């Protein structure tokens, strides 16, 4: 197992998240895609820490832990926004939220 094959797996995960965020019209799917892209970035941080010349300094692990905490906050606020939008417009389809279009 080398670093590059791990990076390819993480790139595939990122692109699946990008696919979910771009091609689905449901707000919860878009949030799932964003979470997947964040997880791929975390995987890269930990992989670069593990393969670095000085793994005694756990900087990558620390960044991954903080990133997971921030992703959790983002997911909570995002899902609350989905519920608030649903109360107001009775839909979660992002294509129908075009009030500001003019």
């Amino acid at each position, binding site marked *: *197992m*080398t*670093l*590059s094959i*791990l*990076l*390819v*797996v993480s*790139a*595939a*995960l*990122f*692109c*699946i*998240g*990008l*696919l*979910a*965020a*771009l*091609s*689905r*019209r449901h707000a*919860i*799917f878009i949030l*799932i895609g964003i*979470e*997947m892209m964040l*997880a791929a970035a*975390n*995987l890269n941080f*930990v992989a670069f*820490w*593990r*393969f670095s*010349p000085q793994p*005694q300094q*756990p900087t990558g*692990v*620390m960044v*991954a*832990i*903080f990133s*997971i*905490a921030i992703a*959790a*906050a*983002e*997911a*909570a*606020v995002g*899902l*609350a926004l*989905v*519920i*608030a939008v*649903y109360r107001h417009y*009775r839909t*979660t*389809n992002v294509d129908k939220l075009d009030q500001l279009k003019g």
Partner: protein
Amino acid sequence: MSIFSFVAIAILTLAAALAAATLPKLIHAALSFAVAFVGIAAFFFLLGAEFVGLVQVFVYVGAVAVLIVFTILLTRRDADPPGKFNWGGVVVAMAVFAGLVWAILRTPTLAMAAAPIEALTVKRIGEILMTDYVWPLQCVGVLLTAALIGALILVMEEKRE
């Protein structure tokens, strides 16, 4: 860190992630999302970052997946909008993937094996969090509190006049 477990975990994670991105039913996608994040946690275990793997399981499979399921239940009335699948997103994602793989395989310094390391214990992580990273830790605490209050305010019932 055997190659067999790596391939098995990679196939499981990517298949579950693809299912979460493409399944038409929301609740199936949420469950595949949980499986995909268990796979990512397995990657963390494989890489020797046990604490990050545990945090990943607690936060994503324990909290975020349950939150997504609750949101699906609360917004159920327009359950499956017969949305058309947008093929432009597929094209963009494939192009990004091709570009990333091209860049990774072109960089010769990335094709290296890992040196053996001593295990990163939770005790060590706790010490570092309380010394070098104490200010980021406080900031994350403030951020989580603000996110909690903000989420509560967002979903609170508005008072009818």
